[in-house]
């Protein structure tokens, strides 16, 4: 009797896997990848911006307040990665997720994982250039803030798409 039940449980588990992973495993993999992409990109982007800002601050430490938003802008992609990862845990009942649904969740996480990574790196480079602009002309801070914010548009779009796909999978 016990053996029959165990066999049935194993069959059910095998049926709920997709490409060897359970739904839960696929979903967690997607969530982790979303944050890894966003987080790594943000870290790199902030590093590029900080390197340039350090040089400016050596000459004029009073510009710290003006430069801080430009340094911090590439940090948002890491937050988008975190939102995606948390949404995976909030929006889906992970232990009951079928292998196929889990795989769909994984693919839905990919826009954030890749677009946030790339956009954060390039946003960091744009921020670095904008910092150079503010170093010479502090009064142009408003325009300098807009340039890196333009790059982020695509990170926002990737998050929107990921959330939209989650609602469709549900």
């Amino acid at each position, binding site marked *: 009797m016990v053996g029959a039940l165990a066999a049935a449980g194993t069959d059910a588990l095998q049926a709920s896997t997709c490409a060897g992973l359970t739904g839960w495993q696929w979903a967690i993999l997607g969530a982790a990848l979303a944050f890894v992409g966003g987080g790594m990109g943000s870290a790199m982007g902030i590093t590029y911006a900080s390197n340039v800002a350090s040089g400016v601050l050596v000459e004029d430490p009073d510009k710290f307040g003006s430069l801080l938003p430009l340094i911090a802008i590439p940090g*948002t992609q890491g937050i988008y990665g975190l*939102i995606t990862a948390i949404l995976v845990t*909030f929006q889906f009942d992970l232990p009951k997720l079928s292998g196929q649904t889990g795989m769909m969740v994984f693919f839905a996480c990919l826009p954030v994982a890749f677009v946030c990574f790339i956009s954060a790196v390039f946003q960091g480079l744009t921020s670095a250039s904008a910092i150079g602009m503010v170093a010479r002309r502090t009064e142009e801070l408003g325009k300098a803030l807009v340039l890196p*914010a*333009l790059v982020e548009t695509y990170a*926002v*779009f990737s998050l929107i798409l990921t959330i939209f796909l989650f609602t469709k999978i549900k």
Partner: protein
Amino acid sequence: MAVEPVKKITVIAYKRYQNQVVDALARIGTVHVERVTGPDMLPPKELTEEEAQASRMCSFGVSQVEFLLGFMKEYQREKSGFLSTMIKEKYPMTADEFMRSWERVDLDKIYEECSDLGQRLIDQRDQKERLRQESDELERWTGLGVPLDEVGGGATFGVMPVRIAASDLEALTGELGARAPESDLEVVGEDGGNVNCFLIYHLGAEEDVTSVLSGCGHDTVSLPKGPLEPDRRLEQVRAELEEIGSEHEEVLDQVDGYREHIGVLEVLKEYLVNQRTKVETMTSFGNTRSTVVIEGWATEEGIEKTRERMGKLSDEIEVEASEPEEGDRPPVSLRNGKWIRPFEFLTRLYGVPNNREYDPTWLIAISFTVFFGFCIGDAGYGPVILIAFLLMRKYMPLGENIKNLLLVMCYGSACALVVGVITGSYFGIETKYLPQFMQSAVVFDALEDPLPLMGVCMGLGLIHMLSGTVVEFHDNWKAGNVADALIDQGLTLFFFIGTIAAAVLAIAGVIPVTVIYLVAGVALLGMIVLLGHGAKSVPGKAFGGLYETYNTLVGWLGDTVSYVRLFALGLATFVIGSVINTMSGMVRGMAPVIGILMMLLVLLVGHTFNVVINLLGAFVHPLRLEYVEFFGKFYEDGGRDFKPLQVESKTVIIEDKGSS
């Protein structure tokens, strides 16, 4: 709520009143001074020797103050904290007190005394460095036992301190024994892998000794001279180092004593810069044989104030006002009501509007407040930020720009409270754990069903961009470009507003659904046919219209979706808050009492971090929506900001600024 009209103002005064007039104008801050040129004028005014000397003295004073501030910062014992580097100290005072700044400190005396102290500190540093090097060398030769003066040798023998690698010692000893037997090598001490030796040789064997030494890589040591043995000299050097160290501390104490003047010096620097600017402004004045002519721009109110102030100075000073002439390019003065004025800096940050444009500050005020509220979007953080910033404004001496920024964020935080209530966000606590009355106020659940809130954000964006289009319609209409207004903006407005209105009426059952398609179709057809009206050729008009229509629709779609960032940032606030709450719950169970303390620490630090990081995003992203999506629909900028001659200060807050 608009660009305030300015008039041309001319102040004519005898040269003997020049300084008084300039002082008075700087005090009331009403006139934007322009360079005077005209056929009746002598060549532009040049500074007299006295004025040029005053300008040079101001520049010299500024460099003295900068040296003193830099000097005190360099030798500051306790380095400034993070907050003090972020928020510079401000000095509130009246204009009269500011103008008497130079009386509060004897700059030349402090400069001279601090220069002396600076020189002493440099000498002490050099001396310490030299003694430290000597001490390092002597420590290796403490076993020498011979006065340092005798190290050079005598009439018939030479003495040489040598340092070689320990592994080479045996080879060197053997070589010396074979080739220079009239020498003796005595080991004094070891230092790492090296051996310090004392080589005595007969002068006749000097060539052989030198040859042997050069063959076995040695370091030539240069010992200091003196009557004492190395160990006794070392004691002496250490005592000298100690003495210099205490002298150094005494000098640093004296430098600390001058730190009480930092505030006065910072004020003095601003005073000197203002004085120099005032003198240099005089070169813009017109010049006749006996009068000076000051020309510029002023508002109606400013003209009256200037007349009143000049009248108090003398009856012989003439103030004339006239309307701008054709070809004049007057500066732009923004004038908004009390509630809107703090937002003017957001418009200026991009560039003031030109004279033909509408001042969009009031629209920015409303939209920025709402967008900021959505980005924070938490009914817990909102009131905390609001109270903190109101207290900062009340009790901290802050500059006008920072006060405006804080007030703008206060409005936004009040909006965040409302957004937090309807989205059920309170310090990141999940909705299911909230009291029932809070749960019942929730309209949008961003986590469970995010699409409605995303739709609201896009709706707000559409309204925002439509208002920008209406402004451009107004500007075009006012400028007489009626066709441009009706075609370029009118059709777009008709398409969006008409379609949305028809959809609402259709949903309400007032009109059939087909009317929506009809309205949208007519608007689209109109756009395709007419939007290419700028092209010269017929094919250009036809294809231009199609291309412009495509561009308009795709552009509006992309711009509208861009507003979903408001939802994303609001969700980020909630999600990070929620993670912090989960983390605090995890540390709570670690230990009975310490766990609770740790939990409180995690909550305090975590939520503070969340507020700070999201404040940054809540400022930058709404600003981007204003500058890219909103301004992109109408704004040209290119105006010259109205900058009256007045006391300019970064660290001084003039309490009675503008009063006559």
